[in-house]
């Protein structure tokens, strides 16, 4: 695959390294002179000095034959424009944007960016998951399907404690797919009982999230 990456910061650097090692044809775009020098010392011709927001640069690197364009600069407006121009002007099939501000998720999606990745949001949920107090964490969003993967830590006072899954009246909006108990995984059946301290992983849609929160008593 021919992959163009805009922005040679830390993320752009490691992404390039990784994709090159998988045998892809990668071109990393970096506009800063000194950063470009550092990157090209390591990656050679896989780095190109230029601004990924400039149509002229994109033309020069043959954006119209790119399979994927990934924008990972530190500015959301730049990432948006890189992806939009790639999509509309160069008919690139798949565009992926880094979101620095998680609040921009909706607008990027609305404006036709295929995939957004928000390191800020991911780091927040990872840290949240490690906090002893938190009991309901969104781990991942499967945007195209409108689903989320969530983690629930069952509190001692949760109404679910001691119940078997068959006795829990969850609607079709959520599906409990995994339990972790004492560091052992359990693929639940109808007979599986929920105990205090279990970590439950579930697939939910928008309505399902609230229902699940309610059922487990984690509604704030």
């Amino acid at each position, binding site marked *: 695959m021919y992959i163009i990456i805009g922005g040679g910061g830390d993320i752009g650097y490691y992404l390039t390294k990784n994709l090159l090692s998988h045998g892809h044809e990668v071109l990393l775009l970096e506009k800063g002179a000194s950063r470009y020098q550092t990157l090209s010392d390591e990656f050679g011709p896989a780095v190109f000095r230029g601004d990924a927001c400039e149509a002229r640069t994109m033309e020069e690197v043959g954006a119209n034959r790119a399979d994927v364009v990934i924008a990972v600069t530190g500015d959301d*407006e730049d990432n948006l*424009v890189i992806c939009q121009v790639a999509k509309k002007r160069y008919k690139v099939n798949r565009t992926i944007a880094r979101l620095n501000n998680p609040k921009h998720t909706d607008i990027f999606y609305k404006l036709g960016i295929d995939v957004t990745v928000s390191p800020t949001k991911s780091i927040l949920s990872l840290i949240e998951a490690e906090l002893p107090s938190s009991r309901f964490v969104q781990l991942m969003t499967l945007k195209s399907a409108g689903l989320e993967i969530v983690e629930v830590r069952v509190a001692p006072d949760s109404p679910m404690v001691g119940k078997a899954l068959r006795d829990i009246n969850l609607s079709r909006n959520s599906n409990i797919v995994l339990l972790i108990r004492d560091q052992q995984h359990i693929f639940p059946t109808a007979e599986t009982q929920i105990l205090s301290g279990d970590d439950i992983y579930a697939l939910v849609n928008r309505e399902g999230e609230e229902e699940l929160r309610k059922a487990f008593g984690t509604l704030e």
Partner: protein
Amino acid sequence: MKIVILGCGRVGAALAGMLDKAGNNVSVIDQSSDSFLRLSLDFQGTSIIGNGVDEDVLIRAGIREADAFAAVTNGDNRNIMASQIAREIFKVKKVVCRIYDPIREETYRELGLETFCPTVTGSKFLFDSITEKKQK
């Protein structure tokens, strides 16, 4: 009319002054409070410090009630993103976006954004005035 202007540089400040004088309700957004010194002393509108691609800042500036929105910061991409937020999320009827890069301007004009490119209009003006002189 309620009008929100993003960017209080020379153009933003002048535009805000003109619209204000013409009796409109004007809000100007800029990241730096120093920029508001460019506004004329009798400016009656509101000035808001903040990032123009942040929905909360736009809401504070009254974008929900706005009849028109103009993006005139010195960053093309910022103008493009803010204009699309104004149009797609807040459904502002009249949105105008300044884009210096002619190729980017063309792309977004084709996408339906109302754009204007000072690079094209400025160089065309200069070209006309120079070649006209030659002919005389």
